[in-house]
């Protein structure tokens, strides 16, 4: 269970352009479920998601991963948790240009320095699973939107995380590819992973595999 207790996040605190992106949200997110954070632009979806994924810290409040309080941990431990627990799929995929599909997929494991042969084998298996094996030596800038997203999914799964976090994953995909993506999410849920998505795409929020939709507005939970 991921427990979020009264968290707030303010940007440019004390400045004339101070902005409260998240205001006192309290939530429990179940494991092995698909949860969608929905809301208009500026509602705080991405900020909340980045705090859950240890990409940033809340200004106040606490986030618990199981029994562990993540909010007060130093950066090094946060990085370790992020690497071991979370896998990220970004809105614009954020693949490293100029590198091959295989190199991009293996990147999250570099700081762990596993045996190179085993790492390549693991990356191959993932690429095979998501139908990208034939493209493994292609540069990522040559990929179509769907291929780039599948590469991003493989990268997110390399360290075998419990929680998969995806920020607006279908924003750059057409309906067919969006449905394909949700099919993959369904498979990952069936494999026992916890999935948290942000989206205002009905293809995502209306998908059968989604267990819960939380609606945000102006940094607060409107409906959960």
């Amino acid at each position, binding site marked *: 269970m991921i427990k979020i207790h009264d968290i707030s996040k303010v940007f440019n605190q004390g400045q004339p352009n101070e902005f409260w992106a998240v205001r006192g949200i309290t939530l429990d997110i179940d494991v092995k479920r698909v949860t969608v954070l929905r809301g208009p632009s500026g509602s705080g979806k991405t900020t909340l998601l980045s705090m859950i994924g240890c990409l940033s810290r809340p200004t106040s409040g606490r986030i618990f991963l199981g029994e562990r309080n993540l909010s007060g941990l130093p950066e090094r431990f946060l990085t370790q948790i992020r690497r071991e627990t979370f896998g990220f799929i970004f809105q614009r995929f954020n693949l490293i240009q100029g590198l091959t599909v295989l190199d991009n997929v293996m990147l999250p494991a570099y*700081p762990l320095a596993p045996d190179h042969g085993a790492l390549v084998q693991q990356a191959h298996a993932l690429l095979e699973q998501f139908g990208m094996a034939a493209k493994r030596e292609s540069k990522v800038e040559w990929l179509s939107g769907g291929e780039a997203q599948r590469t991003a999914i493989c990268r997110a799964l390399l360290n075998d995380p419990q929680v998969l976090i995806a920020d607006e994953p279908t924003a750059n995909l057409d309906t067919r590819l969006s449905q394909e993506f949700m099919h993959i999410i369904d498979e990952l849920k069936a494999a026992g992973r916890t999935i948290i998505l942000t989206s205002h795409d009905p293809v995502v929020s209306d998908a059968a595999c989604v267990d819960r939709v939380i609606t945000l507005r102006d940094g607060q939970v409107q409906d959960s």
Partner: protein
Amino acid sequence: MSHFVRRQRYLIDFTLASLGRRKGKNLGLLGVYTLIVFLLASVMLFSQSLRREAGLLLENAPEVVVQRMVAGRHDLIPADYLERIGKVRGVVAKYGRLWGYFYDPAVQANYTLLVPRDRQIKNGEMIVGHGIARTRGLGAGDYLTFRSAQGQSFAFRVADVLASDAELVSADLLLVNEADFRAFFGITAGMYTDIALEVRNPREVRKVAEKLSVMLPDTRPILREEILRTYDALFQWRQGIVFVLLGGSLLAFVIFAWDKASGLSAEEKREIGILKAIGWETGDVIRMKFWEGALVSLGAFLLGYLAAYGHVFFFDAALFAPVLKGWAVLYPRFHPQPFVDGLQVATLFFFTVFPYTVATVVPIWRAATTDPDAVMR
């Protein structure tokens, strides 16, 4: 393989792949960097080699030379000064020397005429240095005519040509016997150019010089170590001139490299954000950038230094020889012997590899310590 080494290998792999993405730009940087190291290392290696060569050649020179001074200028010294010096403790030999300079208008060059102590030369004969032989096209048996101080012509027959291995200081040398030397320059018997003293214990040399200054107040003792220091200063001065000439291009490179290394493009900042978001630590990002700086600068250093080694020791420093050697007007044909000074390599390494690597790492520090959530926006 240890975890640490494997981790560095992964980081180096990524760095190389990263550098490969901007191949043209990075190869250009490597090329210019290598050229700068090549130029600096060539000058350093060659100057060092010259100083060393001069030092080796002076090994057999006398420890102390006494010159007579008249009105602050070097004058001939009477032979009775040898008796006046008498027996100074520590001096194992003393003798008068005859040498002088002669300007040859035919080739517009200065020659050094010398009466050797260890070689018998017949009247009317001479032994010439390699530089003179080459310039005047002389071989054994040829004749060379000079106009003496009294306006008479002196024809010398070339008996031999000096070996070229000591050419740096013997290129312009002409050896004649004492009688011919005195007749040619009009130096009367009983006068010498200077007096040489051999002192076996190097720690006694300064004491001997002090005694001589007291005993013969109108003379100045010149120590071999002072001559060595002068050579050192001379070659360092020449090296300095070349460095000043290179200064402009060096400065341009420093500005270019600093800008390249320290300026982070928006794309690079985004990549750092991605790497952190997918689980890289700040330290990993900094180490990766360190490897980028180190690989470029170390590569340039090694390539530049090897090229300079080849240039100096296999191609006789063709680019700098005229400026750095410049002995009289007859350029010695001198082949530097391979010699690398560890301290010099370390100095060059420090001033080329270190600043670039630091310039690469420092700006990363700020970018790498920011929260990685920027990639979400």
